[in-house]
């Protein structure tokens, strides 16, 4: 109680100091929330792409999105160390829409045979997966299901018709048979269909001139190659590039390095925000506590006279600065959480842009508390070292 009264002695100064911590923690929570969301996305990507080799038509640089013959699957599976080559087709679920947040809604083919090889496991929240023989069935990721307010048993036309759709735009009815659990990464925006259905939709989107000459069921966007147990995926990528003509295989190690580089950038943003909080909040706490020590010299002298030891005085002043940190941190966290909710609703689409994880929330608050405590150490030490006679005889 005395701690609160001491803070309340100089209301304006205490409020300004708490505001300094509050601003720092607000910045830390929001910037950290951005980084947390991005890092969750990156982590999912690292986990997924480190367990396979991405193969595409050679002019497409390794990622799917071009056109590749389904027959390449056989060639790939002949390469030493390859367990299975999984054909994949991906296309926009909302053509022409740039989407909100980090993930775009994507219709993607699902290969039950390949799922067992991936280290990135998708789990169902409800319903069941599509199979190779599924027709007109879709499994939604958590975000896309929320965005279109769909549950198992509902129907939806895919791709979703854009407002400025061309006259020849075609879509097909699908029944939602499953909803995936949230992953905080790309699959949250997936609409998984069978390869056959994905090829149908892919064929619909081909330019009319090509459409007549190509059988969409012989085409895929790319292949995801999984290795046999113990096989080195980078070596498999090299062998594919050497042995299978017309394709480009990306080494998982290269992809993972690129993903981690993105992650480092965002972590740096968080660190900068934290340093700003440290500098702004910490200096203001040090200043406030030094002033408090100067103003309360006689009080310190009295306390020492009646038996307070160095530790007692240190503890009292550090407790006060810690309280400043805790109040500023608590307010910063609360307002930061509200800001994240508001910003996600306003700009983040269904998946959001910011992610307030328990780690970030607890970490930010503890950071503020520790910051307050550390910033109080120097003034507290100054108070504790004070000569009781000089302190008692001081004016003021």
């Amino acid at each position, binding site marked *: 109680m*005395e701690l609160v*009264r*001491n803070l309340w*002695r100089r209301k304006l100064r205490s409020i300004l100091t708490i505001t300094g911590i509050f601003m720092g923690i607000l910045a830390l929570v929001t910037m950290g929330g951005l980084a947390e969301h991005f890092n969750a996305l990156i982590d999912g990507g690292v986990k997924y792409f480190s367990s396979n080799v991405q193969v595409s038509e050679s002019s497409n640089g390794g990622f799917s999105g071009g056109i590749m013959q389904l027959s390449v699957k056989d060639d790939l599976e002949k390469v030493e160390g390859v367990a299975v080559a999984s054909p994949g087709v991906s296309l926009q679920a909302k053509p022409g829409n740039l989407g909100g947040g980090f993930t775009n809604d994507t219709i993607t083919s699902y290969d039950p045979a390949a799922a067992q090889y991936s280290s990135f496991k998708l789990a169902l929240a409800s319903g069941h997966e599509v199979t190779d023989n599924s027709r007109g069935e879709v499994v939604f990721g958590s975000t896309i299901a929320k965005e279109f307010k769909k549950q198992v048993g509902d129907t939806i036309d895919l791709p979703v018709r854009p407002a400025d759709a061309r006259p020849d735009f075609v879509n097909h009815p699908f029944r939602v048979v499953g909803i995936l659990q949230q992953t905080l990464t790309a699959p949250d925006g997936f609409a998984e269909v069978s390869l056959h259905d994905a090829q149908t939709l892919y064929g619909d989107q081909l330019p009319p001139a090509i459409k007549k000459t190509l059988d969409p069921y012989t085409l895929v966007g790319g292949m995801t190659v999984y290795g046999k147990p113990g096989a080195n995926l980078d070596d498999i990528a090299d062998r594919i590039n050497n042995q299978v003509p017309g394709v480009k295989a990306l080494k998982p190690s290269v992809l993972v390095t690129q993903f981690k580089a993105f992650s480092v950038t965002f972590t740096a943003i968080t660190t900068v925000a934290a340093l700003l909080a440290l500098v702004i909040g910490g200096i203001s706490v040090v200043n406030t506590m030094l002033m408090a020590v100067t103003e309360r010299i*006689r*009080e310190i*002298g*009295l*306390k*020492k*006279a*009646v*038996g*307070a*030891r*160095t530790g*007692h005085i240190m503890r009292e002043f550090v407790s006060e600065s810690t309280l400043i940190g805790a109040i500023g941190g608590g307010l910063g966290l609360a307002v930061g959480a509200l800001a994240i909710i508001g910003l996600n609703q306003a700009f983040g689409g269904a998946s959001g842009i910011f992610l307030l994880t328990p780690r970030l929330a607890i970490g930010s608050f503890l950071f503020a508390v520790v910051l307050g405590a550390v910033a109080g150490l120097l003034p507290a030490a100054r108070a504790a070292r004070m*000569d*009781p*006679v000089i302190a*008692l005889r001081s004016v003021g």
Partner: protein
Amino acid sequence: MPAIQLVDLRKYYGKGEQTVKAVDGVNLSIESGEFASIVGRSGSGKTTLLDSIGLLMRPTTGRIIIDGEDTTAMKDSARAVYRSHKLGFIFQDFNLLDTLNAIENVLLPVRYSGADKKEARKRAFELLEVVGLTDRAAHRPTQMSGGEKQRVSIARALINNPTIVLGDEPTGNLDTETSAKLMTILRAANRDRGVTFVIVTHDLDLASTTDRIVRIQDGHVQSDERLTARPSGEVREPILA
């Protein structure tokens, strides 16, 4: 056994030609249960002497023996513990904390002595009753008169049951009537609780109500006078029932 024994005590400030000898070779023994006053002009060294006895400063040379224990070599932390358990302080300008009410101010030394909080709180209320401030327990110093504040500080000085209470001009900021009332309270504590009192004052009338007057001049004991006839009638009630 003397409560306080000063052996060739010296406290010098500065160096060389600018050395100030605030206390210069004082030998003094104050018996347990005595009520002594130290008088002298401003700058005579009486406050430095009191601060030394209160273990608030270290002497340049000499020894301070309290209740038979030589405090000379004590570390700062041990001196703080000693102050907490053996000594009480009364200051001229009260030194109450404005953020605390009367009872909290009385209890301040308990915070550092480690005494049982519940027992101490009970004792604090008893002491406030003794000094006649039961109805002011929840009041802050800013809501009290000078006399009331000094009575709170007397209760604070006695809260840890010290053997010695040191007063630095305890009535210096009070009018004559209030001073007399406070001295009555201090005398009662001295008589009923056996507490040794040493007060520093420049008020000779006040000093004449004590058992002994030690005059200090230029850091030396100029005279040491034991009063044979105490003024009568100043103690009317026992300090604790």
